[in-house]
C-alpha cells in the first residue's frame, strides 16, 4: 500500500460522494416501494432489477449479518423492506472475524445459514482463497461505483470503519486525555483503563510505523500491554464500556463514537490520536446461501446511490474524501487522518500485523 494508492481511492470515492451530496445528501427517505406487477421498465438496469426482484420474491426472505449491532443496521434494512415489501429481512449479529470460519464449516456441512455476510476486507481473504463467495456483475442491477467492487465482483465495499480513540468525559478531563500513541503509556492509564479490540485491528494506525521499524512497534505494544489494557470481542463492546464508564479510554469504530457523542449525547469525546488505517467493511454472498437472489437484490440496493444516501443519513457509510457527510466531518473536526486499505498485498500485511499485535499483547491463548 502506498499513500498514492489511497489518494487515488480518495479521489474516486470523492467523486461518487460529491455526486451523492449534490443529489440530496443525508436524505434517508427511500424511494417508493417497487410494485410487484409494474409495467415493464424501459431502462435495461431497471428491467434487470425487476427480474431480480421477481426471483427474490420467490425466495421471500433474506438473512443479513450485522458486523456491528442489529439495532444500528435496522434502519437500513427497514428502508430496503419499504422499497421491496415482498422480501422479509431478518438479521443477526456476530463479530465479523467469526463469520469466515463459520461459512467454511457451513459450506462443508451443506447448510449455509446466512445470505449476506460482512467483514473488513482482510477477514475475507480465506474465503477468497477457497472461492466461497458468489461472483456477480453488480453493474447489471446497481449504479455502484466500480471502485467499490473488489475481487471480480465477489465483494462490495460499503462502509469505512476507521477506529478512533475516545475518552469518558466524566472520568477524564480534556487536559489529561491522551493526544498521541505515547500518551497511552502514561502510568495514570495503567490497570484496565484502556479498552481495545482483541483482534488487534484497532492498532492499524501503527502500520506506517511498522513498515519503517517493526521492532519499535513491537516494543511499543509490549509497553502498552503492561498497562493491562482490556481486550474486547467487538467494537460495540468498547463503545459501551467507555460510555458506561467501565473503561475511561477506548478505541471503538468511528461511527459508533459519532452516534454516541452527536446523537445520544453520551459523556464521551475523541482523542486526536492518529493516523487511523483500516480496510473498509465489505459485503459478500457466501456460496450456498439459502436466498441468493434476494441477497443480490439487497446488496445491489445497498451499494447504489439510493442505498448510500440512507447509510449516510445515519452518519455511516464511506468517509472519503474528508469532509463529505456528517460522519466524515466529525473525523476531520477531531483531527483524525484516515488511510483506507484495499489492495490484496496490503490486506495480507494487515493480517500478519494483527496476528503480531494479538501475540505481543497476549489477547488470545497463543503459542
Amino acid at each position: 500500500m502506498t499513500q498514492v494508492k489511497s489518494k487515488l481511492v480518495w479521489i474516486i470515492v470523492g467523486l461518487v460522494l460529491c455526486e451523492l451530496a449534490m443529489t440530496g445528501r443525508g436524505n434517508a427517505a427511500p424511494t417508493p416501494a417497487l410494485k410487484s406487477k409494474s409495467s415493464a421498465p424501459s431502462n435495461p438496469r431497471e428491467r434487470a432489477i425487476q427480474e431480480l426482484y421477481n426471483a427474490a420474491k420467490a425466495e421471500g426472505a433474506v438473512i443479513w449479518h450485522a458486523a456491528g449491532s442489529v439495532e444500528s443496521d435496522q434502519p437500513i434494512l427497514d428502508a430496503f423492506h419499504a422499497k421491496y415489501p415482498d422480501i422479509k429481512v431478518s438479521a443477526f449479529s456476530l463479530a465479523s472475524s467469526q463469520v469466515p470460519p463459520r461459512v467454511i464449516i457451513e459450506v462443508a456441512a451443506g447448510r449455509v445459514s446466512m445470505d449476506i455476510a460482512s467483514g473488513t476486507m482482510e477477514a475475507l481473504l480465506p474465503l477468497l482463497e477457497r472461492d466461497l463467495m458468489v461472483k456477480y456483475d453488480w453493474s447489471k442491477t446497481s449504479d455502484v461505483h466500480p471502485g467499490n467492487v473488489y475481487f471480480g465482483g465477489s465483494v462490495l465495499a460499503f462502509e469505512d470503519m476507521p477506529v478512533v480513540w475516545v475518552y469518558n468525559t466524566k472520568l477524564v478531563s480534556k487536559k489529561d486525555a491522551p493526544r498521541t500513541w505515547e500518551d497511552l503509556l502514561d502510568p495514570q492509564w495503567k490497570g484496565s483503563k484502556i479498552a481495545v479490540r482483541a483482534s488487534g485491528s484497532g492498532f492499524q494506525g501503527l502500520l506506517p510505523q511498522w513498515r519503517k521499524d517493526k521492532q519499535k512497534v513491537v516494543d511499543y505494544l509490549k509497553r502498552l500491554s503492561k498497562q493491562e489494557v482490556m481486550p474486547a470481542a467487538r467494537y460495540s463492546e468498547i463503545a459501551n464500556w467507555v460510555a458506561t464508564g467501565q473503561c475511561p479510554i477506548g478505541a471503538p469504530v468511528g461511527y459508533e463514537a459519532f452516534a454516541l457523542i452527536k446523537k445520544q449525547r453520551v459523556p464521551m469525546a475523541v482523542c486526536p490520536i492518529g493516523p487511523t488505517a483500516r480496510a473498509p467493511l465489505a459485503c459478500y454472498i457466501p456460496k450456498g446461501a439459502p436466498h441468493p437472489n434476494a441477497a443480490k437484490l439487497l446488496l445491489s440496493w445497498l451499494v447504489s446511490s439510493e442505498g448510500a444516501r440512507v447509510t449516510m443519513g445515519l452518519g455511516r457509510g464511506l468517509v472519503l474524501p474528508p469532509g463529505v457527510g456528517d460522519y466524515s466531518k466529525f473525523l476531520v473536526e477531531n483531527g483524525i487522518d484516515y488511510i483506507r486499505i484495499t489492495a490484496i498485498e496490503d490486506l495480507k500485511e494487515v493480517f500478519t500485523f494483527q496476528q503480531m499485535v494479538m501475540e505481543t499483547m497476549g489477547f488470545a491463548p497463543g503459542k
Partner: protein
Amino acid sequence: MVYLIFPPIGLLLFSSVRDTQQRLPFEATTFTTANYVQVFSSAMTYKLLANTAWYAVGTVSLGLGLAILFAWFLERTNVPFRRLLFILMLAPIGVPGIIESMAWTLLANPANGLFNVALRSVLGLSSPGPLNIYSIPGMILVTAMRFVPVMYIMISGVFGRMDPSLEEAGRTSGAGATTTFRRISMPLLTPALLAAVIYYLVLAMEVFEIPAMLGRPKRIFVFSTAIYYAIRPLGTGALSNYGLAGTYGMVLLTVAGLLIYFYARYVRSANRFVTVTGRGYRPRLIDLGRWKFVPILAMSGYFILAVALPLLILLWTSLAPRYSEISVATLPLLSLDSYRKVLANPSIWVAAKNTLVIATTTGIVGIVLSTLASWLSVRSKIRGASIPERLAFLVMGVPGVVLGLAFILVYASMPLPIYGSIWIIVIALVTTSLPFGTRMMNAAFLQIHPELEEAASTSGVGLCSTLVHIDLPLLWASFTRGFVWIFSRSLRETTLTLMLYAVGNQTLSVTLWYLWVEDAKFDVASAIAVPLVIITSVLTFFVARQTMLQEGAA
C-alpha cells in the same frame, strides 16, 4: 447411547491427529502428531493447565467449604429458622452461570462496579479497585457460589445419617469436641467428601461461561475457553484450528476421565464406611447457645451475595436508561423500555421459541432414555444390560465445550441436515443429561420391589406393558422430577448452545451472550435475564426441594 457418545469422541481424536491448520479435519489428507507436539511443547499449555488447576481447586475448596459449613449448621446444630435457611441456601441453584457473571461484572468490575464505587468512597481509595472480578479469584467466587447448593445436596445426607453413637462414644471416652471431630467425624465423612471433591473438580474444569466472561478482559484463559477460541478465533482473518482444539479437548478429556475413574472407585469404596444401621435414630443436635446468630448471618449473607444482589442489580439495569449511574437521581427515569425492546425484537422471540422447544424435547427424550438405561441396569438380567447406564456415566467426564466441538465435527461431516438446526443442540443436551437422568431413575427403580414386575411377568404381561402400566405409574413422581430437572438445566445451558449456534437455532442463553459479551447492551440483556432467572430458579428449586424431601422421608 453408543451413537450419542462414540462418534463425537472418535472424531475428536481423529481431528487431533490431522493437519488442520487451514483445513477441516475431514479435508486434511495426512495424519500427524504435530498438534500434540505443538500443545506439549508450548508454554501456553502449561499456563492453561496451571490456570485451570487453580480455578478448579479454588472453586471446589471455597464451594465445598461453604457447603460443609452449611450442612453442619442445618444437619447437626439447633439453628433456628432451619426451613427458611434451607430455602435461602438452595435458592441460587437455578441461576445460570452466564447471568451470575453478568451481575458480578456490574457489582465488582474494577472501574465502576457497585461494590468498588462504595468501597472507594468509604475508604478514600482511587480507581480502579479495590475489588477485581476480572481475575481467577473472581471467577472462583462466582463459580463456587453456584456450586454450593448442589454440593450441599450431595453431602448433607452424610451429615444427617452419621451414627451419633460413635461421636458419643468418643466424648464418653474423654475426647473434646475438636478431637471428636478430627478423629471420629472426619474419617467418617472423608470418603463422601473425597468423592465430592473429585466430582466437582471435573465440573469446575468444564465450566466455560464464567471464565469466558470474567477471564477474557484480563487475558486469563483456562482449557475450556482456549478450546472455544481455537474454533472461534478472536483475530480477524484467522480460521478455526480444529486440530489444536481437538488436541486441547483430548488433554482435558483425559484429565477429566482419570478423575471420573477415581470418583467411581471412591464412590464404591465409600460404601465400606456404612454408618446407617437398622436402628432408628436422629443425630444429636449441637446446641449453639448464644452463637445461634452466626449460621443465620452466614447463610443470609450467602443468599444476598449469590441471589439477592445479583438479581437486584440486573433488575435496576433493566429498568434504568442506558449509560445512567446507580443513584437516587436516576429513580424517576426508571422505565420498562428495555422490556418493551425485548418484546418488540423478533429474534428474541425466535430465541425464546427455540429455547422452549429445545428444553421440552431434551427433557422428554432425556428422561425416557435415562429411564430405559436405568431399567436395563437395575432390572434386566440380560448380559451386558448395565452397559448403557455405564456409558451414560462416562459422559460426565466429557466437558461441555469438548462435546460441543465433537458434535460440530460429527454433524458437519455427515450428510444429515442436522448441523445448524435446533436438533444438533437437542442431541447434545440429551447426551449431557444422561448421567443426571440415569442417577435419578436408578434411585427410583431401586425403591420399587421387583415382585410387582415378576407378578406381571408370571401373569403373561409383556415387557413394554409392564414398563408402561406398572413401573411408570409408580415412577411417575421421579419421572416428572427428572423431566423438570433436565428441562430447567436445558433452559440455562450456555456452553453447548454457544458452541453449536448458527443462524436460526439461537437460544436465550446465546442471545444473552451476544448482547452482553459482544454488544455490551446491558439493559436489554438484563431485561431477558431477570425473567429467565426467576423461571429457572423456581423450576430447579422445586425439583431440588422435592428430592431433598423425598430423601428425608426415605
